[in-house]
């Protein structure tokens, strides 16, 4: 709990610091919103040409888009800062995080916190709410609970992907871009019905980097689709378990990575 209150103070300091360059802050907030809107614009462009994609209608794909975009935005705001680890390692400033009485991950995410990333959450949230109203969802208590656990679990899964892929930089500092394939690439892939992807990619997204659980399986369940990818639709309820497993893996990889750290400082 003590660490959390330190985290809050550090984040508060970051927010006040960003507020000093107001024009830039608003431009950046705007640009973060536009980033998310570009993804939407791609979906809209595609649906200006066809009525359905891989058997999913426009509003159903919008549900996927929201279920993938909101957790991605939340993870982007709270934990994606971990990707700056490579910069700190290169500059030798990562040592600072090791010297202070705060878990490294918490400290790093607080130091690099940026409120402007809120823009990444807002637009998918609007799409999600619209899709929840318009899509043919059979509402029940189960659906509501599934929706909420899915959003939380999705955030944890995306966050874990960020932590694991950023850990690479402890071994090879220049390879940070690989992380983008899994984080931004993952967000791209989960925003569409993964039926459209090739078989091997689908398997990777189900079993290896379990992003299919972030939006696809829960959305299939909410829409009453039978046998998504040949699985019983109750597989959606495995999502929280997948999230817990992802977090455990991420924790293990991160602490392994930090132990491997050799400072560049003199």
């Amino acid at each position, binding site marked *: 709990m003590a660490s959390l209150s330190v985290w809050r103070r550090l984040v508060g300091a970051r927010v006040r610091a960003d507020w000093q360059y107001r024009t830039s802050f*608003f431009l*950046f907030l705007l640009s973060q919103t*536009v980033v998310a809107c570009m993804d939407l614009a791609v979906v809209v462009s595609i649906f*200006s040409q066809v009525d359905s994609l891989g058997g999913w209608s426009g509003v159903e794909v919008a549900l996927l888009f929201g279920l993938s975009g909101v957790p991605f935005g939340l993870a982007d705001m709270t934990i994606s800062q971990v990707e700056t680890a490579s910069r700190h390692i290169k500059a030798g400033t990562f040592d600072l995080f090791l010297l202070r009485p705060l878990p490294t991950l918490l400290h790093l995410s607080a130091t690099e916190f940026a409120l402007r990333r809120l823009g990444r959450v807002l637009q998918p949230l609007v799409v999600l709410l619209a899709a929840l109203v318009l899509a043919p969802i059979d509402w029940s208590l189960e659906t509501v609970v599934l929706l909420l656990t899915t959003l939380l679990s999705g955030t944890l899964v995306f966050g874990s992907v960020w932590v694991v892929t950023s850990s690479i930089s402890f071994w*090879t500092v220049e390879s*940070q871009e*690989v992380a983008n394939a899994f984080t931004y690439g993952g967000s791209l892939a989960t925003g569409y019905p993964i039926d*459209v992807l090739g078989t091997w990619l689908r398997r990777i997204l189900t079993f290896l980097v379990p992003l299919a659980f972030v939006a696809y399986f829960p959305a299939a369940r909410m829409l009453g689709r039978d046998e998504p990818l040949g699985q019983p639709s109750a597989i959606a309820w495995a999502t929280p378990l997948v999230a817990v497993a992802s977090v455990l893996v991420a924790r293990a990889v991160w602490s392994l990575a930090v132990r491997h750290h050799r400072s560049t400082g003199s």
Partner: protein
Amino acid sequence: MRLYVEVARRTYARISTYRSATVAGVFTNTVFGFLLAYILLAVYRQRTDVGGFDATDAVTFVFVAQGMLMVLGMFNDTEIADRIASGDVVVDLQRPYDHQAWWAGVSYGKAGYYAVFRGIPPFLVGALVFHLRLPSVGDAAAFLVSVVLAVGVAFGWRYLLQLTAFWLLDVRGANQLGWLAAQFLSGAFVPIVFFPDWLEVTARALPFASMLQLPVEIWLGRHDGLSLVGVFALQVGWVLALVLAGRHVMGRAVRRVVVQGG
């Protein structure tokens, strides 16, 4: 001129030392290539043609475009703006060379390296899985010319974006906004023939189509004869317009703005 060629050569050498960064980037471009290709192929399960592109055209477009992203430098690069924000630009301006031409040299040096090492590999990997279209010898030559011009258009845009540092100091917001617009409207995510008509017309009227969409259309053999000359003329026009705009803004900045530092 020799000086700027030398700048380009040194930049090429500087960038080429980051080998693992290149491998990482190729991996990421390839992954995005596959994701976008599969998404577009799903569209072609219901139609055979979108705006004159068949499935092979669209998938080829995706992989050529992924290879060109770094050649054009379509990401947040703040090298120029950092020197403005820190005040180091004063030193640059005192030296006996043209500020804009120097950075153009840097852009072309990077483009040369990335064209070979980030441009070709994603296409080769993509070709292992998908049927991709290869250009005729003539189209390939025209494509190369067009890419050289496209790098100029992208540089003109980059230089303008970076100069906002004189007023904003922190350019990351403006930069990200500027490159996102460029990526989307140039067809980097989906070819602009997939856009609704009004948006495609808008995109074609802006400099961004000259960065990516038009060169790849040449690769796909869409332009020959007069139409090809038209594409080149449009690209040259955008290079000139953006470069002149950059010189104008720089002139104002130098006269009006108090640079950082003592």
